[in-house]
């Protein structure tokens, strides 16, 4: 939309224009409300006294503000360990993912690489066909990866879709930037670390966001590939607590949920709200700043994909 068009419209704004504008604004305000308010609602409940929340009627701000829900959660050893696992898998999974994906994308971005077409076909084929969950489980078992931390980070290390996004990006780096390094005798690996990676910070940040979000949110691998309690990530405990409060949503007695928290008057629901706030906050902090980049990333990916 150009400036000229905007100006023009301002000059000849008809009644119809006004009506349309108002309708659209109202619709969009509703969209924003429906999207954002549920999050706001859990935040005010997470920061409110549990017993008080259970009486209902709290819509705008906490009535009896408190941090006790978070204190109860963080005092629980299993939550401490779960937060550690979630952070660890997010950090390690993202670093590994970005490193492996960008290395492969870098190599594939050279047009003179031998067997390039063959590599492309074999890589892309895996985007469209898969063996399904059952053979995959058998594989993990045979590799001895079940019940280890590595089952969280290794299998997802190379996402072919993200790799294609990066190939597209690396190809836009002008070759003159590589040349001087080559003349100085640097090899491909050095060029990768010293020129290609530093030039791709924005794209790498986008891919890192995608990997990090999927690691942080992931829970099914913990349900099916892991049985050890000390390997549970936060999302798993959250799933348990949500399922519990769903099946026993009438129960407001915190003790029956296994939390010795009745003294602190935190109900299961409040703990659930607090855990959801803990899970959403990191995402909420990061994604708006990367918006510009991931929008670009999605577009590049879908043009080729």
């Amino acid at each position, binding site marked *: 939309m150009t400036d000229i068009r905007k100006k023009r419209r301002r000059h000849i704004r008809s009644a119809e224009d006004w009506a349309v504008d108002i309708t659209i604004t109202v619709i969009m305000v509703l969209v924003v409300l*429906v999207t954002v308010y549920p999050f706001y609602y859990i935040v005010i409940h997470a920061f409110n006294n549990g017993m008080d929340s259970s009486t209902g009627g709290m819509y705008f701000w906490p009535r009896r503000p408190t941090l006790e829900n978070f204190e109860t959660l963080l005092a629980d050893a299993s939550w401490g360990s779960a937060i550690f696992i979630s952070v660890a898998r997010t950090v390690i999974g993202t670093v590994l993912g970005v490193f492996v994906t960008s290395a492969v994308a870098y190599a*594939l971005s050279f047009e003179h690489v031998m067997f390039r077409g063959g590599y492309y076909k074999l890589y892309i084929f895996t985007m469209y066909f898969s063996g399904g969950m059952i053979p995959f489980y058998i594989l993990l*078992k045979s*590799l001895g990866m079940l019940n280890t931390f590595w089952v969280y980070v290794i299998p997802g290390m190379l996402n072919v879709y993200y790799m294609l996004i990066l190939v597209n990006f690396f190809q836009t780096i002008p070759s003159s930037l590589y040349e001087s390094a080559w003349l100085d005798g640097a090899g491909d690996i050095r060029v990768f670390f010293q020129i290609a990676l530093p030039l791709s910070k924005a794209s790498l940040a986008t891919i890192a966001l995608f990997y990090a979000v999927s690691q942080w949110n992931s829970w099914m691998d913990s349900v099916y590939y892991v049985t050890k309690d000390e390997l549970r990530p936060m999302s798993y405990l959250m799933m348990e607590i949500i399922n519990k409060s769903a099946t026993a949503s009438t129960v407001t007695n915190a003790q029956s949920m296994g939390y010795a928290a009745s003294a602190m008057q935190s109900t299961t629901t409040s703990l659930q709200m607090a855990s959801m706030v803990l899970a959403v906050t990191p995402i909420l902090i990061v994604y708006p700043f990367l918006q510009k980049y991931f929008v670009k990333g999605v577009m590049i990916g879908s043009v080729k994909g």
Partner: protein
Amino acid sequence: MNKKDEISHRPKGTFASRFRQQASLQMILLLGLLFLAVFSYVPMVGIIISFKEYKLSTGLMGFFTSEWVGFKWFIEFFTSPMCFKVVRNTLVLSLLKLAIAFPAPILFALLLNEIHSSKFKRLVQTASYLPHFISWIIVSGLCFTMFSSVNGLLNELLLKWGWIDGPLTILTDGKQYWGLAIGTEVWKETGWNAIIFIAAIAGIDSALYEAAQIDGANRLQRIIHVTLPGIKGTIVIMFILALGGLVNGNLDQAMMLGNNLNRDYSEIINSYVLTIGLRQFRFDYAAAVGMMQSVISVALVFSTNALSRRTTGAALY
């Protein structure tokens, strides 16, 4: 010849010397391929157990050494009482998604394009991406918070205002599951999926709008005659992609929003595979059910792609 190639990589020389020159690149690509061979291609070979009697204790070798049983598992699935429900749920949910969750981002992009204030536009966009980044666990948590018949916000308000007499049972009534599934899907992904359409709209030549305006087209007419034709290609491509996922269903959603009370309407092929495979440990039977699904899905992509090439000229392959 490209200068870049001259300097470092394309020496005239034998196959072996060329390979040596780019050995580090080849090493990276081969390692990547090895990774995919293990984590993607080996499981593909594993599909073979759909036609075999497989025991988990036999491990990977069991893919080859187990006994053939032909179509035994397929026949068992088609004659089982769950078959009809699972296939119906998968298809109904997919078709509803195609009919509602697919056009939603297009409509959203069109509306967004009509906003003049760029600040407001940006606010709406940023807010609309948020649900994409959160897990289905959180979505289900939000659903319980909003819709629970005991202390959900919606019931609380509706009862207070006297609009309903008894609480709505959105989460536990099987008949309402399909609506819940589509609603949450639209809520979660509309903003994200709109990105590509917003970009396509931004690419339309503004002279076309000028011309339409001079010809006396009102805003709705401009949308219909300029914007929509302008993004037709994008819509077709995204439609084909959506069809590819048509029978995949949303496993996370089925696992989190499905419960024993709405199981008859929430169980889809994918979640059924997990239940029989990893809960009841019937690996061979589960693999057969899972395979059927991927075959249908691949067939759908290729046939719609061919159809689209013939009718609209736009195609993926």
